């Protein structure tokens, strides 16, 4: 190992969830169906501002600043969608099943590490991103300082000459109020595609 090896972050010390905590978080996300009372217009406006800012950080590849928005007990989940008959319950997300993302904050740090390594050739020259957020709805959770927020997104990527990918989806977040802003504590990303119609998910949602 050369000298720089010792400066590598020790990801084992980064915030993690136990398996039980991750499962609880998944079940909490499944149960978030907008049952609480809706937030007032001032709160809604501040949520919209937060999402616009978050989208801009991701578009501009400011991943470290985006990472700072994540709570230490983050659970970040993009489950698979399956084609199942309605009589068998359709395609309800399963916390025990394979997924595209099933991450805690330490896992996100590793992903950011890949992008920051300067060695991810498929991101060099850089990808151009546009992230559109809409349909923002905020709900009270009954826990002081925590909000349930639903939104939709379009994430468009283009790189090289003709390579492009559009992912459209829905998010369910549990946000914590932190001063003028928010920390993301839970995020469920629901992409409607059962076969992902793009080659990779080298992006955050």
């Amino acid at each position, binding site marked *: 190992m050369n000298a720089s090896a010792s400066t590598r972050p020790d990801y084992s010390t980064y915030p993690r969830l136990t398996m039980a905590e991750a499962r609880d978080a998944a079940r909490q996300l499944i149960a978030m169906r907008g049952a609480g009372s809706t937030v007032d217009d001032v709160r809604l406006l501040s949520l919209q501002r937060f999402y616009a800012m978050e989208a801009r950080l991701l578009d501009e590849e400011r991943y470290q600043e985006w990472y700072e928005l994540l709570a230490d007990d983050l659970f970040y989940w993009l489950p698979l969608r399956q084609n199942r008959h309605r009589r068998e319950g359709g395609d309800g997300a399963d916390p025990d099943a394979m997924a595209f993302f*099933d991450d805690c904050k330490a896992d996100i740090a590793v992903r950011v590490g*890949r992008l920051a390594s300067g*060695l991810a050739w498929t991101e060099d020259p850089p990808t151009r991103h546009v992230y559109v957020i809409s349909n923002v709805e905020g709900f009270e959770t009954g826990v002081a300082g925590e909000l349930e927020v639903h939104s939709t997104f379009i994430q468009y990527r283009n790189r090289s000459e003709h390579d492009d990918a559009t992912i459209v989806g829905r998010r369910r977040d549990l946000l914590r109020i932190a001063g003028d802003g928010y920390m993301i504590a839970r995020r469920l990303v629901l992409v409607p595609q059962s076969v992902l119609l793009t080659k990779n998910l080298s992006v955050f949602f």
Partner: protein
Amino acid sequence: MTFNASSYVDPEFGSVDRRIFWSPEIYELELERIFARSWLFVAHESQLEKPGSFLTTYMGQDPVIVSRDAQGINVFLNSCPHRGNRVCFADSGESRQFTCNYHGWAFGLDGALKRMPKMGIYKATPGFRMEDWGLKRARVASYKGLVFANFDEAAPSLDEWLGDFRWYLDAVLDAEDGGTEFLPGGATRSVLNCNWKFPADNFVGDIYHALWTHLGGAEPTLGPHGGVKVENERSWHVSVNGHGWEFNDSFYGNAATMGDREVLRYMRSRQEAITKRLGEFRANMWGSVASSTIFPNFSFLPGYFTFRTFQPKGPTRTEIHAWTLVPRNMPDEIKDRFRRGSMRTFSPGGILEMDDGENWEHSTAVNAGWVTRHQRLCYAMNPQDEMAETGLAGNVRAGQLSDFNQREFYRQWMKMMDASSWQDIELAPVAGPAAEAVE
């Protein structure tokens, strides 16, 4: 079409004509001569434990239903013989029968036609027999949990097709008592704009790319410049009938890049027992720096235990379907660590897999150029390599930094593409320890 595959592949020095990755005519012939007569992976038995359970998948571009009835596992075309409509649209589930949306023709778990609306009219039709109009069945055979199917009645048995490769397959399929299972929830599926052979040849023998392609993904878990140790000391290529496995003897070299110390601790705790079961040489293959393809399009990575098919969807389009395989008796917590570890490295959102797709897409797309298309590709690494002195079955070569398995993959491709029937295709005689399993 008049086609001479041997003019497209030179398996001795190692070069391949790029038109085989681009030409629609060659692709059409592949569907007929490779996919319609090879044993193709369709399911793991753990996905179909109860009678009535089914899943849908593909054999080449042919959609099939894989279902279990009281007699066993059946594989048949997912296309109604009445007007051709797809019969089952679910990825998996449980059912007593499959009923076509179009006119309501209903088929049993073995694919046989059971009933349809206005059945009396057909019964009164001279020459119409229910047994003539079932869903077309494939031959089915399993090897230690992996279910394969074949539409060619003249094909040799699955045991002959896998041959001595079975002995190596046991390093992942029979390392522990109780067999293996696929983790639940179906496959991660994604689309690539590439020819199916690029991912298949990448898995059959290309550790070389990991040293460069995967630097960015490996650095966060293994340190600057990847830290992946790939050397030609104590490493091998083995090839049988185009199936290939490149590997070293590091026991958990691949698993280490998942960055989960608990997984490594668990694997270490099993090393002695697995060595006792399989012998030291094969035990060291269990999670080592390695990759493998079972010809033509079924691949896996020891260590991550991702098992995947590269489903052809046209000359320049491929779908990856991937599952994670674990020993059934592994503790649930370790299974869960493999679930998360394999998805974070080898799924469309995995930090290693994300760097592969773009390479294969552009290796395919540049062949739109007529001049480009006519320059051959180089598969000449280590052409003079020596037969390894292992005394082991199959075609074994020393050193994993080699194109040997890839040359053998294209040799098999060439043989099958040039042969008009199975009578003209010769498989390797079974010679090694796996011979005992052949009747």
